[in-house]
């Protein structure tokens, strides 16, 4: 069982409906909506591009840091090996 309300009424005249018919207003709204949609899409693409650039920058920074760390490690281990060899000689 539903709780819908049922009413009987007089038929609405087409002249009265005509008052609500306005195609130019509809087109105006449609154009505005499309413009908003386009602007929103542009903003979204811009945001995605910026995010990608930030990600790339972070990745490059991380790789550089890792390389630096590796080089430092290498240098340390080389120094250690050299020290050991020197210790052995003397």
């Amino acid at each position, binding site marked *: 069982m539903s709780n*819908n*309300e049922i009413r009987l009424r007089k038929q609405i005249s087409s002249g009265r409906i005509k008052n609500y018919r306005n195609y130019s207003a509809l087109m105006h709204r449609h154009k505005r909506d499309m413009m908003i949609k386009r602007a929103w899409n542009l903003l979204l693409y811009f945001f995605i591009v910026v995010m990608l650039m930030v990600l790339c920058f972070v990745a490059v920074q991380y790789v550089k840091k890792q390389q630096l760390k590796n080089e430092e490690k290498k240098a340390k281990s080389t120094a250690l090996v050299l020290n050991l060899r020197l210790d052995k000689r003397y």
Partner: protein
Amino acid sequence: MSEEEIQHEYAILERSKRNPNAFGELYEKYFDRIFNFIYRQTDDEELTSDLCSQTFLNALKNLERYEFRGVPFSAWLYKIASNEVNKHYRKLKQDKVFSLEEVRVRELIDISNEGWDEELIQQLLNFLKDLPTDMLQVLELRFFEDKNFKEIAFILDITESGAKMRTYRALDRLRKNFNLTITYNE
């Protein structure tokens, strides 16, 4: 609707995809019908006007996605309108209003021998009030909008047999309760 008319509408739709101004012809053609369809479910002219505009706006916006599925373009508009009305009622969490044209109800129902009196009208309204919303929707589309079962199924997103079943069940109940003869062609 003839094959020729469907083809003509399809051509307008194709043109409208490139130039939205071409959609005006379909707007003029279907505005009254969609307005009446929504008005029957709201009983509020201003609200109907808003929902009707939103319906055509959504149709324009999604024109690219429209594809012919064996039903006229109008069925697609009815589907959008129906969704808009449902969305409105969901948002307000209100019960639906069905306002039926008295003239149309009289046209559809021949009351054998008894005549048309106020008491019977009230009984009929009470009976319709107790019908589930999905049955009322099917009855509205079938008897007030003259849609065939294929179109009703498309509009309400149900199967064709489901649409038939709902209609016949509602009609059975009407016949049992009121001993009415309902004039319509299957």
